[in-house]
């Protein structure tokens, strides 16, 4: 066999086989699922594709979507943050203690700084002290909820006197309702962070194999600390958006937010073992959950049935990805 002939054969063998060419990325699958759900909505309920319904839909997922962005970063790093609900509550309550000052800088600043501080504590205990994040953040969930109750004496607060706070729930930014604008802009920022900066590869490497990352010069502990801090700030932001939207800062709020955010993260393609996941996937996942709930509400389906359907949708979307990973292994 001559060289030219051998080269031709190799080229033929290297050419992607037909099934591989047909394989589409996981985010494309999520986008397709979303389109199918929207089409189903359009068929089943009149006016489903209206701008007003998109507004309702995006408003309903904005806060949890932003919290899920933070969760996604933490999960990519190989850790987990079960404290996001406690972080959202405690941050909002700390901010509420300053409502009487009437100063938006103090109220919003205290809210975000509290989120940052909780993330810092979670990050230090996980990355530098070496306690598993599951334990650290579970403890922090309990602590932050309890402290929120102690500070607030279990009573709600009303941020009506601070217009800038309410803007986070009811205002406009770039012509869009603020929660939606923040969902999209923070999402874009996170995409830039994970795809177009050196932080992105370091994050994926840390989550994929921390030891290898450290040996290759990546400061894995700093990466983990950073994602916990970002997650804390985003949880506080999500809490502030929802509190502003309801004009109501409630120490009993956000029950189950951590699991909701985690479900969106997993639906978005992040593996709990770390090293994979994407912000775009998380956004698509939040939209899928939002469309399912919005559509079922409009069809008059009960909350309990909605939970079953949502869980089934998560399984249906996530399962092929896991099967593919198993085959790859």
């Amino acid at each position, binding site marked *: 066999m001559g060289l030219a002939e051998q080269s031709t054969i190799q080229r033929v063998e290297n050419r992607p086989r037909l099934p591989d060419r047909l394989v589409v990325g996981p985010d494309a699958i999520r986008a397709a699922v979303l389109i199918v759900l929207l089409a189903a909505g359009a068929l089943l*309920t009149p*006016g489903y594709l*209206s701008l*007003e*319904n998109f507004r*309702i839909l995006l*408003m*309903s997922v904005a806060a949890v979507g932003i919290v899920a962005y933070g969760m996604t970063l933490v999960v990519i790093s190989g850790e987990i943050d079960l404290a996001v609900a406690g972080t959202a509550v405690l941050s909002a309550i700390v901010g509420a203690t300053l409502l009487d000052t009437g100063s938006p800088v103090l109220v919003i600043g205290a809210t975000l700084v509290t989120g940052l501080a909780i993330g810092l504590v979670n990050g230090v205990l996980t990355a530098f002290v070496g306690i598993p994040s599951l334990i650290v953040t579970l403890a922090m969930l309990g602590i932050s*909820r309890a402290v*929120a*109750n102690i500070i*607030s*004496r*279990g*009573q*709600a*607060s*009303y941020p*009506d*006197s601070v217009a800038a706070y309410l803007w986070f729930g*009811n205002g406009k930014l770039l012509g869009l309702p603020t929660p939606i604008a923040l969902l999209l802009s923070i999402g874009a920022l996170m995409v830039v962070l994970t795809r177009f900066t050196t932080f992105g590869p370091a994050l994926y490497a840390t989550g994929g194999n921390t030891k290898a990352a450290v040996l290759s010069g990546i400061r894995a502990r700093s990466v983990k600390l950073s994602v916990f801090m970002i997650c804390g700030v985003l949880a506080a932001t999500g809490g502030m958006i*929802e509190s502003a*939207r*309801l*004009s*109501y800062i*409630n*120490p*009993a*709020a956000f*029950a189950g937010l951590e699991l909701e955010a985690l479900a969106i993260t997993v639906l978005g393609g992040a593996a709990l073992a770390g090293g994979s996941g994407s912000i775009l996937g998380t956004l698509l996942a939040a939209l899928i959950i939002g469309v399912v*709930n*919005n559509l079922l*509400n*409009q*069809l*008059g389906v*009960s*909350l*309990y049935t909605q939970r079953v359907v949502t869980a089934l949708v998560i399984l249906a979307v996530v399962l092929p990805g896991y099967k593919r990973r198993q085959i790859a292994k």
Partner: protein
Amino acid sequence: MLSTNRRQFLGGAASLAVVAPWAKVGLAQETQGVHSILNDLIRQYAAAASSMTNPSVRDLYEQDGFQDYLEAYPVGDLVDGFVWEPGMGAEFEGPYSNLPIKAPFTDYIPLDEGPVLDPDRTYRIGFVFHGFNHPWLISLADTVAWEAARHPNIELEVIDAEFDDSRMGQVIDTWITRQFDGIVLWPAREAPMGPPVDRAIEAGIPVVSLDRRTSSSAISSEVLGNFYANGLQQGLYLKHVVSEGNMVLNRKDLGSTADSIRTGAFLQAIGNTDGFEIVGNYHTNSQRSLAFDATADALQANSQFDISFNTGGEEALGALGAIEEAGRLNSGSSGKIIILANDDAKEIMANIRSGAIDMVAPYTPLIGDVGLRALIRHIGANEGRNEAPPRLIITPNLPMVTRTNMTIEGVQTLTPDEWLYAYGPAVE
């Protein structure tokens, strides 16, 4: 877990038992006997429920089995022929909430301030409930603690079981081991609390439940609220102001007493008015954000949306938020979406005052004092000092609150300014 005793309260609670004059009692109110009036209406509408003519209402009523729940819910007279009037009750600062409170029933099953029973003995009483993070439940705890603080020989231990039934059971078992003199509890669910209550009763410790019931048939007393009158009045109000419209229901957890009785009684009241159509039925489970999203979606799905029925206050405020965000408060066939609420939080009252919410049926959390006094009577009965109170202690039916005074089927409504018992933080 929080536990405390009387001494801790004496400094913080400005406890002052005063029967405050009800400034407007002499106005157009004829509320004496509202309990009996509402009981009569309950019986009247319960009897008519078997022949509902509205198919939309009847289908839901039958589908969710409301009849079974309603038939089992006690409706009856007050202890010792007590007659409640607006304006009654003591004012104090809540030991836990630090908020000003006027409790409506401090004259019901009365007990003088000072030592109880044997003045040379200290009576150890446990109060276990769920929810130091919930305004309604903190107010309930406030009234238990206030009553305990009025009696120097009562030592009260208060524990929050944080909505964990098994933890509540463990707390009760611990108190049995420590030979407490009595137990007051607010059970979240009926069935799991039956066995621990039975164990306490077997150990000779009287037990009184507040608001919700347990599955124990041996429990000493149950202090019950007025769920039936709540739902009924929502229906009476609706029928009074309109005779037709598309309605969306925001309900509490399926199978909960609050949902079964309030929603069932509401459906009984409107079941023979054919113009109402139920176009949405959601269980938003006392979560304002869920009620907000469900109502937003229902508004989108129904261009004709006239009435929002809410089984609780959180549901009503979530619905209101969505309706306002959609800019549709002043829409609907009557020119405004009618919003019906339960639970007399100050936030609800502010919205009644502004006209955003149309009516609320008060369901006061300020009944803990009644439970503690009943428990002391039980302890006294065990010591042979007095007679035991009845097993069922029904609290007075309370009249609905509307923006202006109205008379609806003999029930005279109160305005938010006349309703002195609202709980929770003040709202501008």
